[in-house]
Protein backbone atom coordinates (compact mmCIF):
# COMPACT_ATOMS: atom_id res chain seq x y z
CA UNK A 1 0.00 0.00 0.00
CA UNK A 2 2.70 2.48 0.99
CA UNK A 3 4.79 1.54 -2.03
CA UNK A 4 1.77 2.01 -4.26
CA UNK A 5 1.09 5.47 -2.90
CA UNK A 6 4.72 6.48 -3.33
CA UNK A 7 4.89 5.13 -6.86
CA UNK A 8 1.63 6.78 -7.92
CA UNK A 9 2.70 10.08 -6.38
CA UNK A 10 5.98 9.97 -8.29
CA UNK A 11 4.15 9.17 -11.53
CA UNK A 12 1.79 12.09 -10.89
CA UNK A 13 4.80 14.33 -10.38
CA UNK A 14 6.32 13.17 -13.68
CA UNK A 15 3.02 13.89 -15.42
CA UNK A 16 2.98 17.35 -13.90
CA UNK A 17 6.49 18.07 -15.18
CA UNK A 18 5.42 16.90 -18.64
CA UNK A 19 2.32 19.12 -18.43
CA UNK A 20 4.50 22.11 -17.63
CA UNK A 21 6.71 21.38 -20.67
CA UNK A 22 3.65 20.86 -22.80
CA UNK A 23 2.03 24.13 -21.71
CA UNK A 24 5.31 25.95 -22.15
CA UNK A 25 5.68 24.39 -25.61
CA UNK A 26 2.19 25.47 -26.65
CA UNK A 27 2.89 29.02 -25.49
CA UNK A 28 6.06 29.06 -27.58
CA UNK A 29 4.58 27.71 -30.78
CA UNK A 30 5.03 31.24 -31.96
CA UNK A 31 8.46 32.85 -31.79
CA UNK A 32 8.77 35.34 -28.94
CA UNK A 33 8.80 38.33 -31.27
CA UNK A 34 5.43 37.34 -32.68
CA UNK A 35 4.10 37.11 -29.14
CA UNK A 36 5.30 40.63 -28.43
CA UNK A 37 3.68 41.86 -31.62
CA UNK A 38 0.39 40.24 -30.68
CA UNK A 39 0.68 41.76 -27.23
CA UNK A 40 1.33 45.18 -28.77
CA UNK A 41 -1.75 44.83 -30.98
CA UNK A 42 -4.01 44.73 -27.95
CA UNK A 43 -3.01 48.32 -27.15
CA UNK A 44 -2.90 47.52 -23.46
CA UNK A 45 0.78 48.37 -23.21
CA UNK A 46 2.19 51.71 -24.39
CA UNK A 47 4.84 51.27 -27.10
CA UNK A 48 7.38 53.02 -24.91
CA UNK A 49 7.25 50.17 -22.43
CA UNK A 50 7.53 47.42 -25.02
CA UNK A 51 11.35 47.32 -24.95
CA UNK A 52 11.34 47.01 -21.18
CA UNK A 53 8.76 44.26 -21.45
CA UNK A 54 10.86 42.36 -23.96
CA UNK A 55 13.70 42.32 -21.49
CA UNK A 56 11.42 41.32 -18.65
CA UNK A 57 9.92 38.45 -20.61
CA UNK A 58 13.41 37.28 -21.50
CA UNK A 59 12.35 36.76 -25.08
CA UNK A 60 15.89 36.83 -26.41
CA UNK A 61 17.01 34.03 -24.06
CA UNK A 62 17.16 30.47 -25.36
CA UNK A 63 13.95 28.49 -24.75
CA UNK A 64 15.63 26.28 -22.18
CA UNK A 65 16.60 29.30 -20.12
CA UNK A 66 13.08 30.70 -20.41
CA UNK A 67 11.65 27.38 -19.26
CA UNK A 68 14.02 27.16 -16.30
CA UNK A 69 13.14 30.71 -15.31
CA UNK A 70 9.47 29.81 -15.43
CA UNK A 71 10.02 26.72 -13.29
CA UNK A 72 11.90 28.90 -10.80
CA UNK A 73 8.96 31.29 -10.68
CA UNK A 74 6.63 28.35 -10.09
CA UNK A 75 8.79 27.02 -7.28
CA UNK A 76 9.00 30.35 -5.49
CA UNK A 77 5.18 30.47 -5.61
CA UNK A 78 4.62 33.59 -7.69
CA UNK A 79 4.45 31.87 -11.12
CA UNK A 80 5.77 35.11 -12.59
CA UNK A 81 4.13 38.52 -12.91
CA UNK A 82 1.06 39.43 -14.90
CA UNK A 83 2.05 41.51 -17.92
CA UNK A 84 -1.10 43.58 -17.86
CA UNK A 85 -1.91 43.96 -14.18
CA UNK A 86 1.41 45.38 -13.08
CA UNK A 87 2.55 44.41 -9.64
CA UNK A 88 0.23 41.40 -9.42
CA UNK A 89 1.76 37.96 -9.47
CA UNK A 90 0.11 35.29 -11.58
CA UNK A 91 -0.49 33.10 -8.55
CA UNK A 92 -2.20 35.82 -6.50
CA UNK A 93 -4.75 36.33 -9.28
CA UNK A 94 -5.26 32.58 -9.54
CA UNK A 95 -5.66 32.45 -5.78
CA UNK A 96 -8.64 34.81 -6.04
CA UNK A 97 -10.30 33.01 -8.93
CA UNK A 98 -9.69 29.36 -8.15
CA UNK A 99 -12.01 29.00 -5.12
CA UNK A 100 -14.96 30.13 -7.26
CA UNK A 101 -14.28 27.48 -9.88
CA UNK A 102 -13.65 24.76 -7.30
CA UNK A 103 -16.84 25.59 -5.43
CA UNK A 104 -18.83 25.53 -8.66
CA UNK A 105 -17.21 22.23 -9.64
CA UNK A 106 -18.02 20.60 -6.29
CA UNK A 107 -21.60 21.88 -6.25
CA UNK A 108 -22.06 20.84 -9.88
CA UNK A 109 -20.81 17.31 -9.23
CA UNK A 110 -22.91 17.10 -6.06
CA UNK A 111 -26.07 18.06 -7.92
CA UNK A 112 -25.19 15.61 -10.69
CA UNK A 113 -24.91 12.82 -8.11
CA UNK A 114 -28.13 13.82 -6.37
CA UNK A 115 -30.01 13.67 -9.69
CA UNK A 116 -28.14 10.90 -11.49
CA UNK A 117 -27.73 8.23 -8.80
CA UNK A 118 -31.39 7.72 -7.82
CA UNK A 119 -32.53 7.88 -11.44
CA UNK A 120 -29.95 5.26 -12.41
CA UNK A 121 -31.03 2.93 -9.60
CA UNK A 122 -34.74 3.34 -10.42
CA UNK A 123 -34.07 2.79 -14.10
CA UNK A 124 -32.18 -0.45 -13.41
CA UNK A 125 -34.63 -1.83 -10.86
CA UNK A 126 -37.56 -1.14 -13.19
CA UNK A 127 -35.67 -2.37 -16.25
CA UNK A 128 -37.61 -2.20 -19.54
CA UNK A 129 -40.58 -0.48 -17.91
CA UNK A 130 -41.92 2.73 -19.50
CA UNK A 131 -40.25 4.64 -16.66
CA UNK A 132 -36.89 3.07 -17.56
CA UNK A 133 -37.29 4.07 -21.21
CA UNK A 134 -38.30 7.59 -20.25
CA UNK A 135 -35.29 8.03 -17.96
CA UNK A 136 -32.95 6.60 -20.60
CA UNK A 137 -34.22 8.82 -23.39
CA UNK A 138 -34.09 11.89 -21.17
CA UNK A 139 -30.53 11.06 -20.11
CA UNK A 140 -29.34 10.52 -23.67
CA UNK A 141 -30.99 13.80 -24.57
CA UNK A 142 -29.27 15.41 -21.58
CA UNK A 143 -25.92 14.27 -22.95
CA UNK A 144 -26.72 16.03 -26.21
CA UNK A 145 -27.48 19.46 -24.78
CA UNK A 146 -24.43 21.71 -24.51
CA UNK A 147 -24.18 22.96 -20.92
CA UNK A 148 -23.46 26.49 -22.03
CA UNK A 149 -26.51 26.56 -24.27
CA UNK A 150 -28.68 25.43 -21.38
CA UNK A 151 -27.14 28.25 -19.36
CA UNK A 152 -27.88 30.79 -22.08
CA UNK A 153 -31.50 29.63 -22.32
CA UNK A 154 -31.95 29.78 -18.55
CA UNK A 155 -30.51 33.26 -18.39
CA UNK A 156 -32.49 34.45 -21.42
CA UNK A 157 -35.88 33.00 -20.53
CA UNK A 158 -35.36 33.12 -16.78
CA UNK A 159 -34.75 36.83 -16.99
CA UNK A 160 -37.68 37.35 -19.26
CA UNK A 161 -40.37 35.26 -17.58
CA UNK A 162 -39.19 34.21 -14.12
CA UNK A 163 -37.51 37.34 -12.85
CA UNK A 164 -34.19 35.53 -12.57
CA UNK A 165 -31.03 37.49 -13.13
CA UNK A 166 -27.44 36.28 -13.10
CA UNK A 167 -25.74 37.65 -9.96
CA UNK A 168 -24.15 41.03 -10.45
CA UNK A 169 -21.78 40.90 -7.49
CA UNK A 170 -19.78 37.96 -6.20
CA UNK A 171 -20.53 36.99 -2.59
CA UNK A 172 -17.75 34.79 -1.13
CA UNK A 173 -18.97 31.72 0.72
CA UNK A 174 -17.11 32.65 3.91
CA UNK A 175 -18.79 36.06 4.07
CA UNK A 176 -22.36 34.93 3.55
CA UNK A 177 -22.88 31.21 2.95
CA UNK A 178 -26.58 31.54 2.20
CA UNK A 179 -26.20 34.47 -0.16
CA UNK A 180 -23.39 32.58 -1.87
CA UNK A 181 -25.41 29.38 -2.33
CA UNK A 182 -28.39 31.43 -3.55
CA UNK A 183 -26.31 32.71 -6.44
CA UNK A 184 -24.55 29.40 -7.06
CA UNK A 185 -27.36 26.86 -7.19
CA UNK A 186 -28.56 27.60 -10.70
CA UNK A 187 -25.06 27.57 -12.26
CA UNK A 188 -24.33 24.38 -10.30
CA UNK A 189 -27.45 22.70 -11.69
CA UNK A 190 -26.56 23.78 -15.22
CA UNK A 191 -23.07 22.34 -14.77
CA UNK A 192 -24.40 19.17 -13.18
CA UNK A 193 -27.05 18.46 -15.79
CA UNK A 194 -24.85 16.75 -18.38
CA UNK A 195 -22.86 14.86 -15.76
CA UNK A 196 -26.10 13.69 -14.15
CA UNK A 197 -26.97 12.04 -17.46
CA UNK A 198 -23.63 10.19 -17.58
CA UNK A 199 -23.86 9.17 -13.92
CA UNK A 200 -27.38 7.87 -14.48
CA UNK A 201 -26.24 5.73 -17.40
CA UNK A 202 -23.28 4.26 -15.53
CA UNK A 203 -25.29 3.66 -12.35
CA UNK A 204 -27.99 1.91 -14.36
CA UNK A 205 -25.59 -0.48 -16.03
CA UNK A 206 -23.61 -1.34 -12.88
CA UNK A 207 -26.78 -1.83 -10.82
CA UNK A 208 -28.20 -4.07 -13.56
CA UNK A 209 -25.07 -6.16 -13.41
CA UNK A 210 -25.05 -6.32 -9.61
CA UNK A 211 -28.72 -7.36 -9.51
CA UNK A 212 -27.72 -10.63 -11.14
CA UNK A 213 -24.67 -11.33 -9.00
CA UNK A 214 -24.51 -14.33 -6.69
CA UNK A 215 -24.59 -12.23 -3.55
CA UNK A 216 -27.84 -10.59 -4.66
CA UNK A 217 -29.34 -14.02 -5.28
CA UNK A 218 -28.13 -15.20 -1.89
CA UNK A 219 -29.69 -12.18 -0.22
CA UNK A 220 -32.98 -12.90 -1.97
CA UNK A 221 -32.75 -16.60 -1.12
CA UNK A 222 -32.41 -15.89 2.56
CA UNK A 223 -35.70 -14.04 2.33
CA UNK A 224 -34.69 -10.37 2.28
CA UNK A 225 -37.23 -8.00 0.81
CA UNK A 226 -36.23 -6.80 -2.68
CA UNK A 227 -35.91 -3.28 -1.26
CA UNK A 228 -33.32 -4.41 1.24
CA UNK A 229 -31.48 -6.43 -1.41
CA UNK A 230 -31.25 -3.38 -3.62
CA UNK A 231 -30.24 -0.85 -1.01
CA UNK A 232 -28.05 -2.93 1.28
CA UNK A 233 -26.33 -5.17 -1.21
CA UNK A 234 -26.68 -4.10 -4.81
CA UNK A 235 -26.31 -0.33 -4.69
CA UNK A 236 -23.37 -0.39 -2.33
CA UNK A 237 -21.42 -2.63 -4.65
CA UNK A 238 -22.53 -0.86 -7.79
CA UNK A 239 -21.20 2.46 -6.52
CA UNK A 240 -17.54 1.61 -7.08
CA UNK A 241 -17.45 2.25 -10.85
CA UNK A 242 -19.49 5.40 -10.27
CA UNK A 243 -16.86 6.75 -7.87
CA UNK A 244 -14.15 6.00 -10.42
CA UNK A 245 -16.12 7.78 -13.09
CA UNK A 246 -16.70 10.84 -10.93
CA UNK A 247 -12.99 11.04 -10.12
CA UNK A 248 -11.95 10.68 -13.72
CA UNK A 249 -14.30 13.44 -14.83
CA UNK A 250 -12.28 16.09 -12.99
CA UNK A 251 -10.84 17.54 -16.20
CA UNK A 252 -14.26 17.78 -17.81
CA UNK A 253 -15.93 19.22 -14.72
CA UNK A 254 -13.23 21.87 -14.64
CA UNK A 255 -13.83 22.66 -18.33
CA UNK A 256 -17.56 22.82 -17.81
CA UNK A 257 -17.17 25.03 -14.76
CA UNK A 258 -15.08 27.48 -16.81
CA UNK A 259 -17.87 27.90 -19.35
CA UNK A 260 -20.69 28.03 -16.84
CA UNK A 261 -18.97 30.64 -14.70
CA UNK A 262 -18.34 32.77 -17.78
CA UNK A 263 -22.06 32.64 -18.59
CA UNK A 264 -23.15 33.50 -15.08
CA UNK A 265 -20.50 36.19 -14.69
CA UNK A 266 -18.78 34.49 -11.76
CA UNK A 267 -15.20 35.69 -11.17
CA UNK A 268 -13.46 32.31 -11.51
CA UNK A 269 -10.70 30.74 -13.56
CA UNK A 270 -12.74 30.91 -16.77
CA UNK A 271 -12.99 34.66 -16.75
CA UNK A 272 -9.38 35.02 -15.60
CA UNK A 273 -8.04 32.80 -18.36
CA UNK A 274 -10.23 34.12 -21.15
CA UNK A 275 -9.36 37.69 -20.18
CA UNK A 276 -5.67 36.76 -20.08
CA UNK A 277 -5.95 35.29 -23.58
CA UNK A 278 -7.71 38.35 -24.93
CA UNK A 279 -5.06 40.59 -23.35
CA UNK A 280 -2.25 38.27 -24.51
CA UNK A 281 -1.12 38.09 -20.89
CA UNK A 282 1.04 35.04 -21.54
CA UNK A 283 2.42 34.33 -18.06
CA UNK A 284 -1.14 34.36 -16.75
CA UNK A 285 -2.40 31.94 -19.42
CA UNK A 286 0.54 29.64 -18.74
CA UNK A 287 -0.03 29.74 -14.99
CA UNK A 288 -3.79 29.14 -15.24
CA UNK A 289 -3.27 26.11 -17.45
CA UNK A 290 -0.66 24.63 -15.13
CA UNK A 291 -2.78 25.10 -12.01
CA UNK A 292 -5.83 23.57 -13.73
CA UNK A 293 -3.78 20.54 -14.75
CA UNK A 294 -2.24 20.22 -11.30
CA UNK A 295 -5.71 20.03 -9.75
CA UNK A 296 -6.79 17.34 -12.19
CA UNK A 297 -3.62 15.30 -11.60
CA UNK A 298 -4.11 15.61 -7.84
CA UNK A 299 -7.76 14.47 -8.02
CA UNK A 300 -6.88 11.49 -10.21
CA UNK A 301 -4.18 10.53 -7.73
CA UNK A 302 -6.71 10.70 -4.89
CA UNK A 303 -9.13 8.48 -6.82
CA UNK A 304 -6.41 5.90 -7.50
CA UNK A 305 -5.34 5.79 -3.89
CA UNK A 306 -8.89 5.66 -2.55
CA UNK A 307 -9.75 2.51 -4.54
CA UNK A 308 -8.57 0.28 -1.73
CA UNK A 309 -10.59 2.18 0.81
CA UNK A 310 -13.76 2.04 -1.26
CA UNK A 311 -13.27 -1.54 -2.43
CA UNK A 312 -11.22 -3.69 -0.05
CA UNK A 313 -10.97 -6.38 -2.75
CA UNK A 314 -8.54 -4.19 -4.66
CA UNK A 315 -4.94 -5.19 -4.10
CA UNK A 316 -2.27 -2.63 -4.74
CA UNK A 317 0.42 -4.16 -6.85
Amino acid at each position, binding site marked *: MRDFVIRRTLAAFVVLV*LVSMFVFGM*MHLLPGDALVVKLGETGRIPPSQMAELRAKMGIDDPLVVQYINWVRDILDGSMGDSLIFTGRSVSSRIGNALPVTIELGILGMASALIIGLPLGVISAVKQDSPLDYLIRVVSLFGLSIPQF*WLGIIIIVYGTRYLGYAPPSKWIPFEDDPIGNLKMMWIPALVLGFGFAASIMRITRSTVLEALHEDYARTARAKGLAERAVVYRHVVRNALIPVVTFVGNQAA*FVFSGALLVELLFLLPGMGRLTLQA*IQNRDYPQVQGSALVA*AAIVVFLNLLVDISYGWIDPRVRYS
Partner: protein
Amino acid sequence: MAATSQTTQDVYFAPPETRVPRWVRWFASFTRRQPIAAASLAVLVLICAMAVAAPLLAKQPPDAQNLAERLAGPSWDHPLGGDELGRDVWSRLLYGARISLGAGLGATAIGVAAGVVLGLVSGYAGGFVDMTIQRIMDAIMALPPLILLMVLASTLDQNFRNVIIAISIFIAPGTARVVRGSVLTLKEMTFVEAARAIGASPGRIIFAHILPNTFAPVIVLTSITVGSVIIIEAALGYLGLSVRIPAATWGNMLNTGAAKWEQDPLLALAPGIAIIITVFAINLLGDGLRDVLDPRLRGKT
Protein backbone atom coordinates in the same frame (compact mmCIF):
# COMPACT_ATOMS: atom_id res chain seq x y z
CA MET B 1 -36.36 -35.35 -44.49
CA ALA B 2 -37.91 -32.08 -43.44
CA ALA B 3 -34.48 -30.74 -42.63
CA THR B 4 -33.17 -31.63 -46.07
CA SER B 5 -35.98 -29.88 -47.91
CA GLN B 6 -35.38 -26.82 -45.72
CA THR B 7 -31.74 -26.78 -46.82
CA THR B 8 -32.66 -27.18 -50.47
CA GLN B 9 -34.97 -24.23 -50.18
CA ASP B 10 -32.23 -22.11 -48.64
CA VAL B 11 -29.84 -23.05 -51.42
CA TYR B 12 -32.52 -22.31 -53.97
CA PHE B 13 -33.04 -18.77 -52.66
CA ALA B 14 -29.41 -18.13 -51.84
CA PRO B 15 -27.87 -17.03 -55.18
CA PRO B 16 -29.60 -13.64 -55.57
CA GLU B 17 -28.69 -12.76 -51.98
CA THR B 18 -24.99 -13.42 -52.36
CA ARG B 19 -24.78 -10.83 -55.11
CA VAL B 20 -25.71 -8.12 -52.64
CA PRO B 21 -22.47 -6.58 -51.32
CA ARG B 22 -21.56 -7.55 -47.79
CA TRP B 23 -21.86 -4.07 -46.35
CA VAL B 24 -25.37 -3.69 -47.75
CA ARG B 25 -26.43 -6.90 -46.03
CA TRP B 26 -24.72 -5.80 -42.83
CA PHE B 27 -26.54 -2.52 -43.06
CA ALA B 28 -29.91 -4.19 -43.68
CA SER B 29 -29.48 -6.33 -40.59
CA PHE B 30 -28.34 -3.28 -38.62
CA THR B 31 -31.51 -1.44 -39.65
CA ARG B 32 -33.63 -4.39 -38.58
CA ARG B 33 -31.94 -4.76 -35.21
CA GLN B 34 -31.42 -1.08 -34.41
CA PRO B 35 -34.17 0.87 -36.17
CA ILE B 36 -33.66 3.96 -33.99
CA ALA B 37 -29.95 4.07 -34.69
CA ALA B 38 -30.59 3.61 -38.41
CA ALA B 39 -33.10 6.46 -38.35
CA SER B 40 -30.53 8.63 -36.56
CA LEU B 41 -28.03 7.81 -39.27
CA ALA B 42 -30.57 8.92 -41.86
CA VAL B 43 -31.04 12.20 -39.98
CA LEU B 44 -27.28 12.72 -39.88
CA VAL B 45 -26.92 12.01 -43.59
CA LEU B 46 -29.68 14.53 -44.23
CA ILE B 47 -27.94 17.17 -42.08
CA CYS B 48 -24.64 16.54 -43.89
CA ALA B 49 -26.41 16.76 -47.25
CA MET B 50 -27.94 20.09 -46.22
CA ALA B 51 -24.51 21.38 -45.24
CA VAL B 52 -23.02 20.29 -48.55
CA ALA B 53 -25.96 21.72 -50.51
CA ALA B 54 -25.93 24.97 -48.52
CA PRO B 55 -25.50 27.18 -51.62
CA LEU B 56 -28.62 25.63 -53.16
CA LEU B 57 -30.77 25.72 -50.04
CA ALA B 58 -29.81 29.17 -48.80
CA LYS B 59 -31.69 32.02 -50.37
CA GLN B 60 -28.80 34.42 -49.92
CA PRO B 61 -25.09 34.27 -48.99
CA PRO B 62 -24.46 33.83 -45.25
CA ASP B 63 -22.65 37.14 -44.91
CA ALA B 64 -24.92 39.30 -47.07
CA GLN B 65 -26.13 42.13 -44.86
CA ASN B 66 -29.51 43.64 -45.31
CA LEU B 67 -30.20 46.41 -42.83
CA ALA B 68 -33.95 46.22 -43.39
CA GLU B 69 -33.84 42.66 -42.06
CA ARG B 70 -31.98 43.46 -38.83
CA LEU B 71 -33.33 41.23 -36.06
CA ALA B 72 -36.37 40.59 -38.23
CA GLY B 73 -38.71 37.76 -37.36
CA PRO B 74 -39.32 34.77 -39.62
CA SER B 75 -40.70 35.51 -43.06
CA TRP B 76 -41.09 33.68 -46.37
CA ASP B 77 -37.72 34.91 -47.65
CA HIS B 78 -36.00 34.46 -44.31
CA PRO B 79 -37.45 31.36 -42.62
CA LEU B 80 -35.57 32.04 -39.38
CA GLY B 81 -35.42 35.83 -39.64
CA GLY B 82 -32.35 38.03 -39.71
CA ASP B 83 -29.53 38.52 -37.21
CA GLU B 84 -28.12 41.71 -35.69
CA LEU B 85 -26.55 42.73 -39.00
CA GLY B 86 -29.53 41.67 -41.10
CA ARG B 87 -27.90 38.46 -42.28
CA ASP B 88 -30.19 35.54 -43.03
CA VAL B 89 -30.16 33.18 -40.01
CA TRP B 90 -31.26 30.15 -42.05
CA SER B 91 -28.42 30.66 -44.48
CA ARG B 92 -25.90 31.12 -41.65
CA LEU B 93 -27.20 27.97 -39.99
CA LEU B 94 -26.60 25.98 -43.19
CA TYR B 95 -23.12 27.38 -43.75
CA GLY B 96 -22.37 27.07 -40.02
CA ALA B 97 -23.15 23.35 -40.29
CA ARG B 98 -20.22 23.05 -42.68
CA ILE B 99 -17.79 24.27 -40.02
CA SER B 100 -19.43 22.48 -37.09
CA LEU B 101 -19.74 19.13 -38.87
CA GLY B 102 -16.42 19.58 -40.65
CA ALA B 103 -14.66 20.25 -37.37
CA GLY B 104 -16.52 17.37 -35.72
CA LEU B 105 -15.59 14.87 -38.40
CA GLY B 106 -12.14 16.30 -39.25
CA ALA B 107 -10.86 16.65 -35.71
CA THR B 108 -12.24 13.25 -34.74
CA ALA B 109 -10.66 11.59 -37.78
CA ILE B 110 -7.23 13.10 -37.11
CA GLY B 111 -7.40 12.57 -33.35
CA VAL B 112 -8.60 8.97 -33.63
CA ALA B 113 -6.04 8.11 -36.32
CA ALA B 114 -3.24 9.51 -34.16
CA GLY B 115 -4.65 7.76 -31.11
CA VAL B 116 -4.88 4.41 -32.90
CA VAL B 117 -1.26 4.59 -34.07
CA LEU B 118 -0.01 5.66 -30.63
CA GLY B 119 -2.10 2.99 -28.91
CA LEU B 120 -0.86 0.26 -31.26
CA VAL B 121 2.77 1.22 -30.85
CA SER B 122 2.46 1.73 -27.11
CA GLY B 123 0.66 -1.54 -26.47
CA TYR B 124 2.75 -3.66 -28.82
CA ALA B 125 6.17 -2.26 -27.96
CA GLY B 126 5.66 -2.18 -24.20
CA GLY B 127 8.51 -1.21 -21.88
CA PHE B 128 10.08 2.22 -22.11
CA VAL B 129 8.25 3.27 -25.30
CA ASP B 130 4.93 2.34 -23.72
CA MET B 131 5.70 4.21 -20.53
CA THR B 132 6.86 7.35 -22.35
CA ILE B 133 3.80 7.47 -24.60
CA GLN B 134 1.44 6.79 -21.70
CA ARG B 135 2.91 9.55 -19.51
CA ILE B 136 2.64 12.04 -22.40
CA MET B 137 -1.00 11.00 -22.94
CA ASP B 138 -1.59 11.44 -19.18
CA ALA B 139 -0.14 14.93 -19.40
CA ILE B 140 -2.47 15.90 -22.25
CA MET B 141 -5.46 14.40 -20.47
CA ALA B 142 -4.62 16.29 -17.30
CA LEU B 143 -5.28 19.60 -19.03
CA PRO B 144 -8.98 20.41 -18.97
CA PRO B 145 -9.98 20.41 -22.67
CA LEU B 146 -11.20 23.98 -22.65
CA ILE B 147 -7.96 25.25 -21.06
CA LEU B 148 -5.91 23.33 -23.63
CA LEU B 149 -7.98 24.82 -26.44
CA MET B 150 -7.86 28.31 -24.93
CA VAL B 151 -4.07 28.16 -24.71
CA LEU B 152 -3.75 26.97 -28.30
CA ALA B 153 -6.21 29.60 -29.49
CA SER B 154 -4.02 32.25 -27.92
CA THR B 155 -0.94 31.27 -29.91
CA LEU B 156 -2.32 29.77 -33.13
CA ASP B 157 -4.23 31.74 -35.72
CA GLN B 158 -7.91 31.00 -35.45
CA ASN B 159 -8.59 29.36 -38.78
CA PHE B 160 -10.45 26.17 -39.61
CA ARG B 161 -7.29 24.06 -39.90
CA ASN B 162 -5.87 25.13 -36.56
CA VAL B 163 -9.16 24.65 -34.73
CA ILE B 164 -9.26 21.07 -36.04
CA ILE B 165 -5.65 20.41 -35.04
CA ALA B 166 -6.20 21.86 -31.57
CA ILE B 167 -9.30 19.76 -30.94
CA SER B 168 -7.71 16.58 -32.27
CA ILE B 169 -4.88 16.91 -29.73
CA PHE B 170 -7.23 16.28 -26.86
CA ILE B 171 -9.04 13.41 -28.62
CA ALA B 172 -5.97 11.29 -29.31
CA PRO B 173 -5.16 10.22 -25.71
CA GLY B 174 -8.59 8.67 -25.06
CA THR B 175 -8.42 6.59 -28.23
CA ALA B 176 -4.80 5.65 -27.55
CA ARG B 177 -5.78 4.33 -24.13
CA VAL B 178 -8.65 2.20 -25.47
CA VAL B 179 -6.56 0.80 -28.34
CA ARG B 180 -3.60 0.07 -26.06
CA GLY B 181 -5.90 -1.83 -23.73
CA SER B 182 -7.15 -4.13 -26.49
CA VAL B 183 -3.64 -4.55 -27.96
CA LEU B 184 -2.36 -5.76 -24.59
CA THR B 185 -4.93 -8.58 -24.63
CA LEU B 186 -4.67 -9.28 -28.36
CA LYS B 187 -0.91 -9.64 -28.53
CA GLU B 188 -1.01 -12.58 -26.12
CA MET B 189 -3.52 -14.44 -28.30
CA THR B 190 -2.69 -17.57 -30.30
CA PHE B 191 -3.31 -16.08 -33.73
CA VAL B 192 -0.72 -13.37 -33.07
CA GLU B 193 1.72 -15.96 -31.82
CA ALA B 194 1.06 -18.00 -34.97
CA ALA B 195 1.76 -15.00 -37.16
CA ARG B 196 5.00 -14.38 -35.29
CA ALA B 197 5.96 -18.04 -35.61
CA ILE B 198 5.67 -18.01 -39.40
CA GLY B 199 7.94 -14.98 -39.42
CA ALA B 200 5.57 -12.04 -39.94
CA SER B 201 7.22 -8.66 -39.35
CA PRO B 202 6.06 -6.54 -36.37
CA GLY B 203 4.50 -4.08 -38.85
CA ARG B 204 2.50 -6.86 -40.49
CA ILE B 205 1.42 -8.28 -37.15
CA ILE B 206 0.29 -4.88 -35.92
CA PHE B 207 -1.54 -3.74 -39.02
CA ALA B 208 -2.82 -7.02 -40.51
CA HIS B 209 -3.61 -8.98 -37.37
CA ILE B 210 -4.05 -6.73 -34.36
CA LEU B 211 -5.48 -3.53 -35.87
CA PRO B 212 -8.62 -5.08 -37.42
CA ASN B 213 -9.51 -6.57 -34.05
CA THR B 214 -9.47 -3.19 -32.31
CA PHE B 215 -12.03 -1.68 -34.70
CA ALA B 216 -15.18 -2.39 -32.69
CA PRO B 217 -14.33 -0.33 -29.58
CA VAL B 218 -12.72 2.37 -31.74
CA ILE B 219 -15.82 2.76 -33.92
CA VAL B 220 -18.03 3.04 -30.85
CA LEU B 221 -15.72 5.57 -29.23
CA THR B 222 -15.43 7.55 -32.46
CA SER B 223 -19.17 7.88 -32.95
CA ILE B 224 -19.57 9.35 -29.48
CA THR B 225 -16.51 11.58 -29.86
CA VAL B 226 -17.91 13.33 -32.93
CA GLY B 227 -20.80 14.55 -30.79
CA SER B 228 -18.62 15.93 -28.03
CA VAL B 229 -16.33 17.61 -30.57
CA ILE B 230 -19.30 19.42 -32.09
CA ILE B 231 -20.24 20.65 -28.61
CA ILE B 232 -16.64 21.67 -27.84
CA GLU B 233 -16.31 23.52 -31.14
CA ALA B 234 -19.55 25.34 -30.40
CA ALA B 235 -18.22 26.29 -26.96
CA LEU B 236 -15.07 27.66 -28.56
CA GLY B 237 -17.15 29.54 -31.10
CA TYR B 238 -19.28 30.95 -28.31
CA LEU B 239 -16.13 32.22 -26.57
CA GLY B 240 -14.88 33.67 -29.85
CA LEU B 241 -11.97 31.23 -29.99
CA SER B 242 -13.05 29.13 -32.97
CA VAL B 243 -12.90 30.09 -36.64
CA ARG B 244 -12.92 33.88 -36.82
CA ILE B 245 -16.01 35.87 -37.64
CA PRO B 246 -17.53 36.78 -40.11
CA ALA B 247 -17.56 33.06 -40.96
CA ALA B 248 -20.71 31.56 -39.53
CA THR B 249 -20.38 28.74 -37.01
CA TRP B 250 -23.09 27.41 -34.72
CA GLY B 251 -20.97 28.52 -31.77
CA ASN B 252 -20.50 32.14 -32.76
CA MET B 253 -24.16 32.35 -33.78
CA LEU B 254 -24.97 31.39 -30.20
CA ASN B 255 -22.72 34.17 -29.04
CA THR B 256 -24.59 36.90 -30.93
CA GLY B 257 -27.85 35.12 -30.15
CA ALA B 258 -27.15 35.33 -26.43
CA ALA B 259 -26.30 39.02 -26.72
CA LYS B 260 -29.40 39.98 -28.73
CA TRP B 261 -31.97 37.66 -27.20
CA GLU B 262 -34.13 40.51 -26.01
CA GLN B 263 -34.86 41.62 -29.54
CA ASP B 264 -34.99 38.16 -31.12
CA PRO B 265 -35.08 35.00 -28.99
CA LEU B 266 -34.89 32.85 -32.12
CA LEU B 267 -31.24 33.85 -32.57
CA ALA B 268 -30.13 31.81 -29.56
CA LEU B 269 -32.60 28.98 -30.07
CA ALA B 270 -31.92 28.11 -33.71
CA PRO B 271 -28.20 27.18 -33.50
CA GLY B 272 -28.73 25.48 -30.14
CA ILE B 273 -31.46 23.27 -31.54
CA ALA B 274 -29.32 22.45 -34.56
CA ILE B 275 -26.54 21.31 -32.22
CA ILE B 276 -28.91 19.28 -30.05
CA ILE B 277 -30.55 17.47 -32.99
CA THR B 278 -27.17 16.62 -34.49
CA VAL B 279 -25.54 15.46 -31.26
CA PHE B 280 -28.64 13.55 -30.13
CA ALA B 281 -28.70 11.67 -33.43
CA ILE B 282 -24.97 10.92 -33.08
CA ASN B 283 -25.46 9.60 -29.54
CA LEU B 284 -28.39 7.39 -30.60
CA LEU B 285 -26.31 6.04 -33.47
CA GLY B 286 -23.38 5.44 -31.13
CA ASP B 287 -25.60 3.51 -28.72
CA GLY B 288 -26.92 1.34 -31.55
CA LEU B 289 -23.45 0.69 -32.97
CA ARG B 290 -22.20 -0.29 -29.55
CA ASP B 291 -24.99 -2.81 -29.05
CA VAL B 292 -24.23 -4.41 -32.40
CA LEU B 293 -20.44 -4.29 -32.37
CA ASP B 294 -19.67 -4.91 -28.76
CA PRO B 295 -22.24 -7.15 -27.08
CA ARG B 296 -20.24 -7.13 -23.85
CA LEU B 297 -20.95 -3.45 -23.40
CA ARG B 298 -24.68 -3.68 -24.09
CA GLY B 299 -26.56 -1.31 -21.83
CA LYS B 300 -23.41 0.37 -20.57
CA THR B 301 -22.30 3.89 -21.25
